[in-house]
């Protein structure tokens, strides 16, 4: 029995607005590994669960860019979990790489917590690095994950969702 399985891989051969994973049962935890770039000037990676578009999310991210001191950014009662993303202002060959862990996603007694790490160059001059977390304020088991960008995803992005089993 494999402990960590690749559930689904999505390679974008054209620009799209979002990527959705909805066949995710049978695991203890989930991990999404991605290589992404926005199809526009605003890089912002968003995530929602179970088609919930209400103000039921909170998130906090610690990020650094250029030589500026680290900064914190977050929101409560948000409509999604957010991260800084890579914009199309960067060179055509630059895509950011990141990992999102979704812990105990099928447990119906807890809100769902995620941890994110991500880094790239925002444009030709400014690299960035982010570590963040998020909470979906619902005890429902996660059955569907929508992953999207403020400006949509650009061709060439790739996303793989992994399922991690317990012993």
């Amino acid at each position: 029995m494999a402990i960590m399985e690749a559930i689904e891989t999505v390679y974008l051969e054209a620009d799209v607005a979002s990527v959705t994973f909805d066949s995710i049962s049978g695991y203890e935890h989930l991990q999404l590994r991605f290589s992404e770039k926005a199809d526009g000037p605003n890089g912002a990676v968003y995530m929602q669960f179970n088609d919930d578009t209400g103000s039921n999310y909170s998130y906090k991210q610690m990020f650094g860019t250029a030589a500026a001191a680290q900064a914190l950014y977050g929101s409560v009662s948000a409509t999604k979990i957010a991260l800084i993303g890579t914009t199309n202002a960067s060179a055509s060959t630059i895509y950011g790489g990141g990992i999102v862990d979704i812990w105990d996603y099928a447990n119906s007694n807890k809100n769902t917590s995620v941890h994110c790490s991500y880094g790239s160059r925002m444009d030709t001059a400014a690299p960035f690095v982010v570590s963040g977390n998020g909470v979906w304020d619902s005890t429902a088991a996660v059955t569907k994950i929508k992953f999207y960008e403020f400006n949509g995803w650009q061709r060439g992005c790739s996303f793989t969702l992994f399922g991690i089993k317990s012993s």
Partner: protein
Amino acid sequence: MTITINTDAPAYMVDGVLTDGEAWVALQTNVVSGGSTAAITMQSTTGANDWSQYMDLVLISYGRNGDGSASVMKMNLNNDTGANYVKQQLYGQGSDPVLAATSVSNTYLDFFWYPPSATAANVIACSVTTLSDINSGKYKSAQVQIANSMNATGYVAIVANVWENQAAITEIDLVDFSGSNIAAGSRFDLFGVLPRMVTA
């Protein structure tokens, strides 16, 4: 140096049929033994260690400087030691505020901060480095998490790197920043991460 390389046939091929098995595959383990060593070299070869089949690579580093004062190790990809690496980092030391730093035109990928040899015995640092989408035509992106406590005088850091090259990654070289040796007992474990192999 003890080197173990997994050149077995890929486990996702079963009787000639493509399957989805374990997504993480152990590729190589390098353990510094019998004295310190100057460099670690990992190369794509055959079987499971053919890196062209993987989506990401993950390197787990665990070690310290063997005989020098440097506290950084350098990573070079595909023997590229030119000024083609860019980084952004966040790091904390003691109770100071977390600091950010950036640099471009670096000659190495920043992946590991470790204790100099003068640090108390048995104090070891570790890091986890993810190299994303290593066989694509994109510039290669790496995310690093570093824990280097140095017996309470050290650092915790996250680093994002970009290697400005579109080539597939086929070799990883690790050396001390100042040319010192890597201490005996240090180890470097490389894993390949497979994508979904079979269409659902």
